[in-house]
């Protein structure tokens, strides 16, 4: 490699934009050529110096009054529905708490009921299905408005609903073993009710 060829690639070399083979070719040349090595040292020093410059500088005067004045005489910003950050945080926290409560109650559940009431079991299954249907309808409305949420908010909503679904799944699994447990049936309904509340809130906020 000639000095001319090496110097032509020196910027890319210093910026780390060369492939492995070319990088090594330049390194070999620099090891053998003091003049080009000196160029590389100077170039690297300049780049490092530029990188240390402060990326924030305060203007000498407050520029806001002029900006506010120009905005006031211009058209208002396009209005879009607001999605307060606290809402999805509260939603995620509620879902996490709900799951924790389910864990605790399932961990400390009473022993299986000695004589499960088949009529009560049937009623419980019906209620479970009714709540699922209501939740599915509300979810359709929420999904239709997803584009009004930031990608992060959408991810949090999905995460929260997934956690609630996990809680319901865990309760149903325990109920299959102990269908007559009043505590588990009560817990199932209360988690369903919370999910409906959450979905209704989401529909209202994204409307």
């Amino acid at each position, binding site marked *: 490699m000639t000095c001319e060829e090496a110097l032509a690639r020196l910027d890319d070399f210093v910026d780390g934009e060369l492939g492995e083979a070319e990088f090594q070719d330049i390194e070999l040349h620099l090891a053998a050529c003091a003049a080009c090595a000196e160029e590389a040292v100077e170039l690297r020093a300049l780049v490092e110096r530029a990188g240390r410059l402060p990326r924030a500088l305060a203007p000498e005067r407050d520029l806001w009054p002029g900006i506010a004045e120009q905005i006031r005489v211009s058209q208002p910003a396009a209005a879009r529905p607001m999605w307060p950050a606290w809402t999805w945080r509260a939603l995620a926290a509620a879902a996490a708490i709900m799951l924790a409560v389910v864990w605790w109650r399932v961990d400390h559940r009473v022993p299986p009921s000695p004589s499960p009431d088949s009529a009560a079991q049937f009623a419980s299954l019906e209620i479970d299905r009714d709540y699922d249907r209501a939740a599915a309808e509300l979810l359709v409305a929420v999904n239709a408005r997803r584009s009004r949420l930031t*990608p992060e908010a959408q991810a949090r909503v999905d995460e929260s609903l997934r956690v609630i679904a996990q809680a319901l799944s865990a309760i149903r699994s325990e109920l299959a073993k102990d269908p007559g447990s009043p505590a588990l049936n009560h817990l199932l309904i209360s988690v369903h009710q919370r999910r409906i509340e959450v979905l209704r809130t989401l529909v209202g906020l994204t409307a």
Partner: protein
Amino acid sequence: MRPAATSDSAGDAIPARLIQDERRSEEWALVCRAREGDLAAFEALYRQHVRRVYALCLRLSGNSALAEDLTQEAFVRAWKKLAQFRGESAFSTWLHPLVVNVALTERRSRRTREAHTFLTDDVAAHERPAADADPEGRLDIERAVASLPAGARAVFVLHDVEGYRHDQIAGMTGVTVGTSKAQLHRARQLLKERLAP
């Protein structure tokens, strides 16, 4: 017994991510309020970002009075275009290319209106510290950058100060990657000459 379908991490992971995302969430909340016409929310965004925006305008223009005008124009334009920011990135990631566009458009329009010479001491004189308060010679390099030809200066500022890649610079300035690299090479060579002892 703990249900197998759940895991210990579910309850803990959400608050951790919430803390990590909190700043972005607060910023997004300000953007949403500003979109609805809340000028106080937009002022809060301005206060958070004005120093970065002004520094960029100052270095791209090389003139403090022009940098103030460009900063104001950039924020007014950001206000008008807020509906286009969808929250996929940090607000600054959306704002800074807009600022570059404002600054470079102004440069082009000025070039066609008049034979313009930038006041190259403005950037260096910006903070006017005593000589012994500038041991790294920051003012020397600021002054040298401000004296560069406009195209080379823009690429140097965007690449070596702001950290953009050549393809990003090409997208923002409307030149090819090859031209961006050539301008950077020219800027660095000129700076080495002008900063040589």
